[in-house]
């Protein structure tokens, strides 16, 4: 039986012994090193000790739109359709792992580019969670602050295999430090960052 390394690098393209040894050494190194920590939303922006410009460069262009959105929100609501690209880029992928109550479960949150109205869209893919038994049996993605559930990012049901959901939240992510998935009727974390 091939060992895991051989299986990992077997992409059907021939490999010489020197290259195999080189990749093997990286493989062995990765096995020795623990994963880097996920960076919570609170840490996505650098400290403001430095003289901060008002907004990062990529957000300068839609500044007027953001101002208009704020004005609309303040003066009686309404909706602003911002200038969003058809396929917003992925800002960061956050990998979540199952806790003891859901060992083997995994999730990946693809945090997409903040839209012009200040919402953070995200694609969440989950696998390994027990399938929902109905609409009332839902899972919920939370932002956490100091280890406590702080704000809900949305509820969803889960089916066999991979479940993919799209969510969007209006929160300022700097105020949070992690992500957690719970099941309805419980605050027990099933997936955490």
């Amino acid at each position: 039986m091939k060992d895991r390394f051989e299986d990992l690098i077997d992409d059907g393209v021939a490999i010489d012994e020197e290259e195999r040894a080189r990749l093997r050494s990286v493989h062995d190194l990765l096995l020795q090193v623990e994963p880097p920590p996920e960076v919570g939303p609170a840490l996505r922006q650098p400290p403001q000790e430095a003289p901060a410009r008002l907004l990062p460069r990529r957000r300068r262009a839609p500044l007027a739109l953001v101002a208009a959105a704020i004005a609309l929100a303040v003066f009686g609501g309404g909706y602003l359709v911002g200038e969003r690209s058809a396929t917003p880029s992925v800002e960061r992928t956050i990998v979540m792992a199952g806790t003891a109550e859901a060992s083997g479960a995994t999730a990946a949150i693809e945090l997409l580019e903040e839209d012009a109205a200040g919402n953070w869209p995200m694609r969440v893919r989950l696998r390994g969670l027990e399938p929902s038994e109905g609409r009332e049996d839902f899972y919920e993605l939370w932002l956490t602050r100091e280890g406590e559930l702080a704000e809900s990012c949305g509820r969803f049901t889960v089916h066999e295999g991979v479940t993919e959901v799209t969510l969007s939240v209006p929160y300022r992510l700097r105020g949070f430090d992690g992500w957690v998935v719970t099941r309805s009727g419980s605050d027990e974390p099933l997936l955490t960052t």
Partner: protein
Amino acid sequence: MPVVTENGVSDGELLQRVADRDRDAFDELYRRYTRPVLGLALRRLGDRGRAEDALQDAFVAVWRSASSYDPQRGAGAAWLYTVARNAIVDGARRRPEPPAETPETPADEVGPAERAERSWLVWRVHRAIEELPEPERQVLELAYWGEQSQSEIAEFLHIPLGTVKTRTRAGLARLAGLLEEELR
């Protein structure tokens, strides 16, 4: 050690721009090093909250002292590692862990030199992972740290198994290049 990254700007060049108070360069350095510095702080402090404070302290220190970086004396990563490590240690002294929350830690049997070497190695691996293109980083993290099989990764990411294998091999090869010195 590679000094030029995928976007063609080295850490050293960014540090020199930070010394000139270039906020964009500072943001880019922060993006590159957030996870390695947070990992370093977590290993040193063992507490997420204190580590996050230390991360902030470390980057404030980088901003303040970037003008002391001398490219003739070494790569930007090594300078940043030293500044971050010092800031983390200083922060730990200023904000000692409350006695009531002191965790019981097993005796550390390795010496200071080995700990320092290990710490640098982990730092370099984490930084190298950050340098990978997102698709390669994702499959490697899921394979090595998510403990998923390649079939599971393919299903999880909605990509063909062959793509997982191609990305895995490409990612390992890229890492081998980035970690050339560490692998000698």
